[in-house]
């Protein structure tokens, strides 16, 4: 397994200023995740694991400290560059699938591709990806509301992979699925990891964490 760090946090602190006083969601967190690693982040509710995931996922920037994703200093990036980093480097898989309801399954997968390539997919990649996750052409023409939870999550995984990002960020990917479907999704993620993708997964579920090479526990904003 490669050991170059693809995700590096150094003394990352995230403070949410509130009227009732500042809330320290992340408190000087230092960690590093190597390329090709499968890391689980665990911790009780309100421990700061979502905040950590948002930092790694480049949806937010640290209040202080340094955060490097794929060699880029996130705190220094403009909104445009941060958005571009998300588009090219990160794939997201959410607990609630988060497909765009007005787009068909196919269009949902195509969407990030269009945003990145600014032209139609002529390589057939979108269709192939969907097919590899068991979503055939007929099913791909449906809107998300007409698909089962498992199908929606598979569409979401296809969408996360369409731009071939090196890092996958998963936020409770099995939380809204039954055990059997959840296991299938985890097998899929494990398979993707075996083929070299770095996977960071936030979960409550200890069985999910067993798929990971390493577990990082967050408590009161501190990593251990």
């Amino acid at each position, binding site marked *: 397994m490669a050991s170059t760090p693809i995700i590096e946090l150094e003394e990352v602190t995230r403070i949410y200023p509130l009227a009732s006083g500042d809330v320290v969601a992340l408190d000087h967190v230092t960690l590093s995740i190597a390329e090709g690693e499968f890391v689980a982040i665990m911790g009780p509710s309100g421990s700061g694991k979502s905040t950590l995931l*948002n930092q790694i*996922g480049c*949806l*937010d920037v640290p209040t202080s400290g340094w955060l490097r994703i794929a060699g880029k200093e996130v705190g220094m990036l403009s*909104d*445009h560059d941060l*958005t*571009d980093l*998300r*588009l*090219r480097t*990160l794939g*997201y898989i*959410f607990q609630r699938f*988060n*497909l*765009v*309801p*007005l*787009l068909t399954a196919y*269009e949902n997968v*195509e*969407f*990030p591709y*269009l*945003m*990145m390539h*600014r*032209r*139609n997919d002529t390589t057939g990649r979108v269709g192939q990806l969907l097919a590899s996750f068991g979503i055939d052409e007929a099913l791909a023409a449906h809107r998300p509301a007409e698909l089962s939870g498992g199908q929606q999550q598979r569409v979401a995984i296809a*969408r996360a992979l369409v*731009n071939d990002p090196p890092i996958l960020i998963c936020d409770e990917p099995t939380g809204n699925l039954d055990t059997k479907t959840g296991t299938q999704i985890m097998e899929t993620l494990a398979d993707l990891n075996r083929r070299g993708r770095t996977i960071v997964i936030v979960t409550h579920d200890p069985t999910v964490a067993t798929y990971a090479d390493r577990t990082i526990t967050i408590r009161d904003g501190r990593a251990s």
Partner: protein
Amino acid sequence: MRQGGIVFQLAVRSIRLNLLRSLLAALGIVIGVIAIAAMGMMGANMTLTVKDQMSEMGNVLVVTHDAGTSGGGSSGGAGGMGGGPPGMSSGSSEDDEDDNFISESQFKAIRNAVGSNGTVYTVHSLSDEFSSGTRDGRATVFGLDPDVIPEVLALSDGSYPRGDSGALVGAALAERFNLTLGSRLSLGDEDEGTHTVRVVGIVEERGMSFDLSTDMAVILPDESYTSFYGDEKEYDQVNVVLEDVDSADATSTSITEKLNARKTQVRVSDASRMLETITSTIGTMTTFVMAIAGISLLVAAVSIFNVMMMSVTERVREIGIMRSLGTQRPEILKMFLYESAILGFTGSLIGAACSFGIGYLVVVSLLGSADHFFEFQSLVYLPAAMLVGTAICILSGLYPSWRAANLDPIEALRAE
């Protein structure tokens, strides 16, 4: 489907999802566009109709006596509608002042100045009572050179007067007093003596006119006029009919230079001044009415704004998803601007289509004719109103779209 294509598709689908709400918002734009387009077309048609009537007189100059009080430019004293030449209003020449006329020598000088550029003829005019059978009335009486009458007046019936008992009457006068060929008219009142003439011809309707308003007038040959009213060799006005419209300015200048060199004696008026005044009056009126119609568009803009704010609020989560996937702010901005632009364009298009019919009805009912409806100056209000409608919608969508584009992705993702 291109990148822009999918963003556009999202806008279209969002409208379809809330079709009724979107239609109602667009309805406001429809009404607004109809209002301004119809009013604009009405104004344009009024202007065109007036221009039409006036342009027939573009080659006519009217020379009247000027006491010299107003400095005396070439056409500077025409003063538009109010201070026009005597022929304009039937009452003005009744109180004939002794020196308020153009003399024979002045007439000759005018004819000299015009030269071969056109026909110059004298006009006697006053307002007098008349009776026809049992009915009494008042009309302008013109005295014209019998040789000139056929050149300047067209008849709808009868023939030009020969001898001294024949008279022509205007179409409107004939209609109102039931005058037909052969009717007898007694001019003047019984105390001062009357003069009876026979109607030999009806003058074709001339509409608004500034050289000779014959519609409500009696026209006599000079000889017949002067034998009854006197004033031989003293004319109320001199009309110049030019061969070429373009020589109007030059001729006007040449007349004033000749006659007003030492002392202002005459005033030369042409139709353009009057036209300018009327056109600008109509223009002001149209602008005012259109501004009122514009208020309806403003109300529509508020409703578009409201619908767009609702659309943004409902789709906050979707915006969060798209932003997290790497969609740039401008794409989100575009998505909502497309939505308001589609609403505006569709509303404006329907509005313009309706305006075509409604505008036609307004013009026909107010002006009585749609002669100019299909002309450029009139129909241009359709695309113009459409443009304004669409632009207003896009403007209304600017703030909501800007808000959508600047949402924090994390906050947006958290929304239900």
